[in-house]
């Protein structure tokens, strides 16, 4: 079987992603008065990120038009795979024996 290459950007459920220029990035950071690490994150290995070619350190603008009130804009900061492990806290066993409450 031959694998057909599919461009996921063509899928109607994939919202519009664009890489911001440095200028635009600074503008956003200034607008919300934050540093880049306060933004929501996205992995460099994310399928869409790979396709549009964003690199770790970029800021991506996502325009979703399927929200009930029309267009909604979102910004995400691209991080490399290596930075990821720090975020996946191995805290699974540290959420100690919290059994579902029985009332």
């Amino acid at each position: 079987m031959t694998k057909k290459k599919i461009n996921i950007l063509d899928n109607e459920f994939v919202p519009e992603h664009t890489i911001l220029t440095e200028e635009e990035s600074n503008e956003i950071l200034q607008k919300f008065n934050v540093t880049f690490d306060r933004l929501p994150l996205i992995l460099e290995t994310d399928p869409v990120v790979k396709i549009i070619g964003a690199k770790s350190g970029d800021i991506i603008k996502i325009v979703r038009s399927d929200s009930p009130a029309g267009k909604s804009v979102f910004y995400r900061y691209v991080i490399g795979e290596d930075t990821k492990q720090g975020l996946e806290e191995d805290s699974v066993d540290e959420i100690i024996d919290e059994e579902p409450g029985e009332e």
Partner: protein
Amino acid sequence: MFKVPKVIDKIQFGILSPEDIRKMSVLRVITADTYDDDGYPIEKGLMDQRLGVIDPGLKCKTCGQKFGDCPGHFGHIELARPVIHVGHAKDVYKILKSVCRDCGKLKLDASQREIFQGQLLSATDRLKNREIIVKEAMDKAAKNVCPWCGSDKRSIKFEKPYTFYEEWGEERNKLTPIDVRERLEKIPVEEYELIGVNKEVSKPEWMVLTVLPVPPVTVRPSITLESSVRSEDDLTHKLVDIIRINQRLRENIDAGAPQLIVEDLWELLQYHVTTYFNNSTSGVPPARHRSGRILKTISQRLSGKEGRFRSNLSGKRVDFSARTVVSPDPYISINEVGVPDFVASELTVPERVTAYNLEEMKKIVRNGPNKHPGANYVIRNDGKRKKITDITKDDVAEELDIGFIVERQLRDGDIVLFNRQPSLHRLSIMAHEVKVMPYKTFRLNLCVCPPYNADFDGDEMNLHLPQTEEARSEAGIIMKVQENIISPRYGEPVIGGMQDYISGAYLMTREGAEFSAEEVEECFYESDVLSTKVGVEAFQERSKIWTGKNMFEVLLPKDLSVEFRSKTCKKCEKCEFANCKYDNYVVIKEGKLLKGVIDGAAFKARSSCKLLDKIVKGYGADEGREFLDSVTKLIISVIMKVGLTTGIDDVDIPEEGLERIDEILENAHNKVMENIEAYKGGELEKQPGQTLEDTLENRIMAELAKARDNAGGVAEQYLGMKRHAVIMAKTGAKGNMLDLTQMAACLGQMTVRGKRLHRGYQDRSLPHFKRGDRSAKARGFVSSSYREGLSPTEFFFHSMGGREGLVDTAVRTAQSGYMQRRLINALQDLKVEKDRSVRDNSNNIIQFEYGEDGVDLSRSAYGEAVDIDWIVHKTLALRKS
């Protein structure tokens, strides 16, 4: 008023050093006993009087203070041999792994160390914080051979909960706590930050205990039972065990006992110290009381729902609150809550006496604590708090001056918060105005039941009384019931009519409902509409006949114009709108109800009810409340005149109808048998993706569902609007037509897990049937109706289906409760900032615009800024007139 005794500036966490423990200790505990035969505390025992006082009247031998003032003092136990602190065992393991067994240095070479230290210096943000760097460094070191002294590579094995082994090649050597402690001691201070230890407050070797603190007796008070038998706290029991074993261990060591015995005792000491900290450590059998009850030790005191954090720190019992059963009162406003008089005289509001209310306050104080709008305490200008009694009330009133604070009793119009658990959404706590009433229950308007999810089968609710003027006004402005008519979740009313209000509205406004002037006057009088909305002069002409619509429109805003389909709408193929011949299209113009019947579609709670929605959104919460209050009162007085009842004859169907239903069911049965024959004969075609059995089952299910629907359809033809049960179902008051057809025609298929019933016996559901019988009757199809009554097998099948429903609801509530808790914990400190972005407590952005669209459903028109349709409609209506 309230004095803050101490202000906590900061909290520093660290590990207690043995020296610290000895320093804070007032006594080395050496005796395992508590009291002697005379009931006197034994010197140097666990109940030594230097450890604090728990008996009123005695004085502390350390600080000289009385019971209640003395906070208690720590003692200590010198352990004969060190033991691992279970709480630190995992950290000890991590450190042992990454540290050289000989030189104690972290097994990283100079360049690697430098990299990690550099990272630590600059570590601040959330992508690279200290914990992660330390973890990386330690993981890396664990894999290395010591680059400093090149000692051979031996791996450390950790056996939960507190045993360590060293392994090399085939050999294996147990590390005693002494060995462990030695290795930790060897670690140079410079390495501390790379293994995640704060050198200011901790040393790694302190994770192995040599001295054990003994908590003050005030932490573990003994209780005296009625029979004057002393019962000790669990912690004391545990400490007794520790001291006893410690003693034996020391004696054996001193006597030069064999290694084996010493090791056994050492292990036992380790066990007792472990369970003293945490009695639910996995891999350790829990220590038990003599009675077999599992002891509650330190960790158990703190963790879980009944632990110190969740039950005493995050949640507390509060003053100025009340709880009792709720019962309905349709004659109070939705904004009000009926408070029993005996509750009102207990709850107080502090009110400052000013020149403007001096006389009023004097009057209240003169009433004393026992006559209702009275007062219980007065705080004078010198800060003295005085109780008002029947004897002192007149003197106190005389003395009353500007600046005094009177703790007056709750009275009509006070703002209180009213709450019903589970508090799942913000509407579970709303502000009400107090209305003091006789008897012992909180009274609640029926329209506010939906947001609280309250009914009156014994529900209890809580009431809280805000104590400051700011809190009260804030609650009144943003938490008032009328401000919450529109749900923030879906932007439609959650507060509104239900049950009898809906069917009553239908009975009142349906075509042909007419009332004499007397009746109308009476209804208006009963519902307080007379003279506020309608003058007496409207009834001068006594022979005038009022239609229900005429009565209803009295309550509408004078310039309201709306049109909508009523709930009873038959959904004809071609809608005639205003010319609907069934009177199911409501037309309100300029506050006149021209056409249509008022029912669930107009003002039913928790539904998209057009009329109430328009009134609240178009005229404001005040108007909405007034409409609801008056319309409900009017409707109940009307429904009491008209009457609404239901009985078995409401689902009676004439003989001819029953025959048709029987025929439908008989046909379905035959079709099922045909399918089964086809299956047995191998003629059944397989459906894609299903086995032959699945195909058969699906066909039978479809056939039977169709039969039930058809039977229901036939029944429906005979169930006209003359029957009150039908009125209730069609108007949306209670029940639906499916319920009625189940009563009148046929119950239909019972299922468990979406399948026809098949389990119970071998290849059959009940022994009344043949094995492998797939017919409708044998697999839980109930062809009887509730009215007819069920056959024994049908009854059993029905209860099987019913049981599944019960189990499902029980499981669902437990699961959703837990999910809710986790969700709330995850979202609790998100907030919307000034720039409308949503952020968490460390300023991370969660959403750039609240809800990604910045819309508050309860303050917008169905998610849009303006409701264009309605504005157009209103303007058109205005122009036409």
